[in-house]
């Protein structure tokens, strides 16, 4: 298995602050495209020699994409009908054509 469990990503030398990887906030901002340009370039340079950060960025991006692609749950018609009833709007419930 290519997974390298339990390896701290912060073990190599790096010029950022305490000498580790970048704060995880940066990674989340980076994935959103909201990291300041300069930090962005620094992080990208860092990722060239830090596989762990690269994997975290890739898999975080993919995680978000997978969740985004989840089919949206549809509200069942019966739930909607009961909602109209509870709200005393039953008369205004738009009847689906053909349904009941």
């Amino acid at each position, binding site marked *: 298995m290519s997974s390298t469990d339990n390896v701290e990503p912060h073990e190599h030398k790096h010029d950022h602050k305490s000498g580790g990887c970048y704060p995880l906030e940066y990674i989340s901002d980076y994935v959103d495209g909201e990291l300041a340009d300069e930090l962005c370039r620094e992080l990208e340079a860092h990722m060239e020699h830090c596989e762990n950060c690269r994997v*975290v960025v890739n*898999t975080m991006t993919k995680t978000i994409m997978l969740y*985004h692609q989840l089919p949206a*749950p549809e509200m069942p018609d019966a739930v909607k009908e009961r909602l109209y009833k509870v709200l005393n709007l039953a008369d205004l419930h738009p009847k689906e054509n053909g349904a009941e």
Partner: protein
Amino acid sequence: MSNLDDQALVERLQAGDQFAYAELVEQHAGQVYRLALRMMGNEADAEDVLQETFLSAFKAIDRFEGRSSLSTWLYRIANNAALMRLRRNEPDQVSIDEPVERDDGDVMPRQFFDFCCLPEDDLMRDEARAEMQRAVDELTPTLRSVFIMRDIEGLSTQETAEALDLSVSAVKSRLMRARLKLREQLSAYFAQGPVIPEARASS
């Protein structure tokens, strides 16, 4: 839906126009239900939250000042209703009286299996989706609502902050934690390799 459209609808709602009430439900019940279902994890509780949300919204509409959109406002009411219900169901787990973040825990990445390049079929199979849902259910409610709004429903950071009465930086930090936890869990799951259910052989 623009705030301008909102404004016209709000005026009618505040005047007690029944058709406006129905319109509000038509436009927003779907979004409220989706949030409720993802927060609660089951249909029965989601339906209760849906009903509570609109009942509260109708009562509070006179006080709606248009500082956020109707959509964001309803998200806020729905999220509060969901948290209340979660707290009732599991009093130990959810505390909204103490906003102290007990939910943080350790989010340091430990799984470095790069599952990005797995075939889409493996990533999208029902079982993987069930795992994704399970992972969301395991987030603490405060992280869960941020993640659902931002990354599943696609609200902006600003809208999420408004809906949750949080600062933008609090939203970002919770979102980061939620993402890291989910990433960790999915990595662990996919690292096991695709689990082919025997049943598949039948087709």
